[in-house]
C-alpha cells in the first residue's frame, strides 16, 4: 500500500473531520499545512466557533470588600473525559496568572469583563493584565502610570472586545476627574489623617484622593491674605469677600463648563498596535452634564462599590456609566460619542448599586432600591438614545423567602476557592457545563411572609443572551427572569477563605461568558521591579 497523506483527502471529508474538533485543536490543525489552512479558512470553520462559544453563562466573577482576590461563582464542572478536562475547563481560580497568592501585597481584582476576556489589576493595582480563563492565556498591558500611582482615584479602566469582529481587544481609560493628575501630581497635602478610619482600612492600598476643590482653590491664594494679622478687621473682611468672589467666579466658570469636553481625548490601549494611543472622540448631540454635575456626583457610588462604574461593549460601541449621572456611548469605530442621562432612579438616602450591562436586546441599566427592581433598556433607534422602562418589580417577598429558606435550598452554584475540595455539593453529578436557565431550581414564593426585613438585593449582572438578571442579597444569589418573573436560587457566593467582618460584602461582579478566541501572547517578560 502506498503511503497515504491525508492532505489528499477530499476537501469535504477533511472539513467533516475538522468540524468535530474543538476550537483550539482546529486552530492547531490549521497550522499544519497550507491545504488544511485553506480548508479551514475557505469554509470559515473557526467562525462557527466564534458564534457558538461565547453564548453561555459560565458564572459570575466577584470582587469582595477587603479580600485579596476575586472568585468565580458558578456551577461546579466535572469534566466528562480527560481530553475535555485538558481542553475545555475554565480555570475559575485563574491560577495561571502570574500572581503569588501567598504574598500579602499581591492583592488583585477583576476590573472588567468583556465576552470572555477578563481585565484584572494585579500587584495590588500596579499592573493591568488581560486574561482568558478558558484558554488560560494572559498578557500584561504596558503600564500607563508610574508604579504606586493612585490611578483608581482619577480613572476607570474598561475592556472592549468582540471576537465576532476581531481577535483584538482594547483597554480604555475614562477619567473620573477633569484632569489627569497622575502626570502632574496634585499639590494639596496628603489628607490621610482626616479620612475616617474605616475608609483607610477598606482602601488601605490607595493613597489620598485627589480633591478637585483643593486643586481649584490652589490656583488662587487670595484667601490667604485675609489671615494677615497686620490688617484691621474691616480690611480683612473686604479682602476675604473679594477673595471669595474671585475664587467663586473662577470656580463657577470651571464648574459650568460642559462635561465631558468635545473632543474628548482618551487613552486607549490597542492590542493590535501593542501600545497606548490617544484618541479624540467628538460628541454627537447635546451635552447633558457640566463639571459641576460631575463634581456633585460621588466618585464612588457607595462605600460598597462599585469602585468604578460599570461599562458594557455592544456592537462596536463602549457604553460607560460616567461620574455625573450619565452614560456615554463611545463608538470605537467612528471615534465619536453620545451622552444620555441615567434613568431617574434616585430615592433619597438609599445607597444602591446601579448596573450597566448587556442583555438580550442590547444595553440595560438596572438598580434595586428599597427592594424595588427597576430595569431600563437603551433604545437607539433613529440615532437617538432613549431609556425604555423594562420592568419595575417588588422584591420584598423574594428577599424574605430567600432569607428564610435559603439555607435549606439546593444550591447548584458554588464559589471556587483555593481549598474548596469539600465545598462542592455532592448531589451534583451531572456533567453539565452550562447553567440551565430554564429548568434549574425555580421556586415559588409563599405569600403571607410579613416579617421584619432589612435585606435588599443588589444586581450582580445581566445574562447577556436572555432577559435574566442576577441578584444578590448579601451573598445569596438568585436569577430573576424578567419576562416570567420566575426566581431561581443559585447559592451562596461567600468564599470560605473570606474572613468574617461586618464590612463583608460584594464590591463588583461580572457575568462571565467563556470564549476560546482572543489573541493573548503569553508574556514572559514581566519584571519584578
Amino acid at each position: 500500500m502506498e503511503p497515504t497523506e491525508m492532505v489528499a483527502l477530499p476537501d469535504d471529508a477533511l472539513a467533516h473531520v475538522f468540524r468535530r474538533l474543538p476550537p483550539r485543536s482546529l486552530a492547531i490543525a490549521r497550522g499544519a499545512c497550507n491545504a488544511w489552512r485553506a480548508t479551514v479558512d475557505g469554509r470559515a470553520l473557526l467562525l462557527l466557533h466564534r458564534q457558538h462559544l461565547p453564548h453561555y453563562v459560565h458564572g459570575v466573577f466577584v470582587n469582595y470588600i477587603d479580600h485579596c482576590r476575586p472568585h468565580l461563582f458558578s456551577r461546579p464542572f466535572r469534566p466528562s473525559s480527560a481530553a475535555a478536562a485538558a481542553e475545555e475547563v475554565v480555570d475559575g481560580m485563574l491560577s495561571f496568572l502570574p500572581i503569588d497568592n501567598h504574598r500579602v501585597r499581591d492583592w488583585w481584582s477583576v476590573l472588567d469583563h468583556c465576552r470572555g476576556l477578563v481585565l484584572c489589576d494585579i500587584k495590588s493595582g500596579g499592573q493591568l493584565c488581560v486574561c482568558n480563563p478558558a484558554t488560560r492565556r494572559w498578557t500584561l498591558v504596558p503600564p500607563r502610570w508610574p508604579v504606586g500611582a493612585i490611578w483608581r482615584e482619577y480613572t476607570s479602566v474598561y475592556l472592549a472586545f468582540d471576537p465576532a469582529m476581531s481577535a483584538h481587544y482594547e483597554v480604555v481609560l475614562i477619567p473620573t476627574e477633569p484632569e489627569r493628575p497622575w502626570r502632574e501630581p496634585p499639590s494639596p497635602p496628603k489628607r490621610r489623617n482626616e479620612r475616617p478610619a474605616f475608609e483607610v482600612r477598606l482602601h488601605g492600598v490607595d493613597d489620598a484622593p485627589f480633591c478637585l476643590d483643593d486643586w481649584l482653590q490652589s490656583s488662587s491664594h487670595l484667601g490667604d491674605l485675609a489671615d494677615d494679622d497686620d490688617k484691621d478687621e474691616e480690611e480683612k473682611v473686604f479682602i476675604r469677600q473679594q477673595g471669595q468672589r474671585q475664587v467663586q467666579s473662577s470656580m463657577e466658570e470651571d464648574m459650568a463648563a460642559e462635561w465631558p469636553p468635545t473632543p474628548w481625548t482618551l487613552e486607549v490601549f490597542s492590542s493590535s498596535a501593542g501600545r497606548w494611543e490617544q484618541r479624540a472622540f467628538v460628541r454627537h448631540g447635546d451635552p447633558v452634564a457640566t463639571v459641576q454635575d460631575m463634581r456633585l456626583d460621588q466618585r464612588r457610588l457607595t462605600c460598597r462599590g462599585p469602585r468604578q462604574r460599570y461599562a458594557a461593549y455592544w456592537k462596536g460601541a463602549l457604553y460607560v456609566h460616567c461620574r455625573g449621572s450619565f452614560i456615554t456611548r463611545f463608538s470605537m469605530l467612528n471615534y465619536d460619542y453620545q451622552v444620555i442621562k441615567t434613568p431617574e432612579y434616585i430615592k433619597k438616602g438609599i445607597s444602591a448599586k446601579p448596573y450597566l450591562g448587556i442583555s438580550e436586546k442590547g444595553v440595560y441599566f438596572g438598580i434595586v432600591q428599597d427592594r424595588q427592581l427597576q430595569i431600563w433598556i437603551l433604545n437607539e433607534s433613529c440615532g437617538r438614545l432613549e431609556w425604555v422602562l423594562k420592568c419595575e418589580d417588588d422584591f420584598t417577598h423574594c428577599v424574605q423567602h430567600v432569607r428564610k429558606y435559603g439555607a435549606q435550598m439546593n444550591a447548584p452554584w458554588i464559589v471556587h476557592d483555593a481549598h474548596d475540595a469539600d465545598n462542592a455539593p455532592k448531589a451534583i453529578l451531572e456533567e453539565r457545563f452550562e447553567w440551565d436557565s430554564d429548568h434549574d431550581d425555580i421556586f415559588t414564593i409563599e405569600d403571607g411572609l410579613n416579617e421584619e426585613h432589612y435585606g435588599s438585593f443588589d444586581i450582580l449582572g445581566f445574562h447577556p443572551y436572555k432577559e435574566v438578571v442576577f441578584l444578590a442579597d448579601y451573598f445569596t444569589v438568585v436569577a430573576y427572569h424578567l419576562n416570567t418573573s420566575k426566581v431561581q436560587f443559585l447559592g451562596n457566593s461567600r468564599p470560605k477563605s473570606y474572613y468574617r467582618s461586618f464590612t463583608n460584602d460584594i464590591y463588583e461582579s461580572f457575568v462571565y461568558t467563556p470564549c476560546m478566541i482572543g489573541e493573548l501572547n503569553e508574556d514572559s517578560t514581566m519584571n519584578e521591579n
Partner: protein
Amino acid sequence: MEVDKGKGEAEETRKVAEADRDTVTLKSSDGKLFEVSKEAAARLSTVLAGMIAGGSIDDNGTDLKQIGSEALENVVDYCNKHANSIPSAALISSSISFNTAPFKEPEEWERKFVDRLSHDALFDLVEAANFLGMERLLDVTCHKISEMMKGKSPDQIREVFNIKNDYTKEELEEIRQELAWAFYDD
C-alpha cells in the same frame, strides 16, 4: 472470474444474498469482486442507491475504479455489520450533508470497527465513504480521525498524518500571531 473470499460475515451475507438474488456485486480498482446486500447498499450509500434505482448496476461487478480492494472490503464489511445491528431511523438519510446534521456518537461496534484499521486503511475508507456518499460511515471514520488530532501540537499532527510542513518561516509566524491563543504549549 474470481470472487474474493471476503471475511466471515461478508461471505455469509453473500450466501444469503445469492439465495435471495438480492445482492449487488461491486468491483474494486484492482478487479476484486465483492457482494453486498442490495437493501443495505441502498440504505447506507446515496450513490449506490442512485445506481440501483437507475438500473446502472452491472451483474458482473459494478466498477468502482476509485476504491481499492481493501477499502471496498471494509465498506462491504461495514454494510453487513450495519445490516446485522439494529437499524436506526435516524441513520437513514436522503442526502449527504457536510454542514448541519448533528453528529451521533459512534456505537460500540462502529468504534471497534474503525479502531482495528491502520491509518492508511482508515483514510482510504474515508475516501471510499465520501465517494459512495455513505454519510454514517463518513461520520464514524471522521470522528476517529478527529480523535487522532485532538490535543496534539502542529508537529505531532504532521507526524501522525504524514504531512509535509509547506509553510515558510514567515507564514508560520503569521499563523502563530493570528491564533496565539491556540498554541499554549510551545
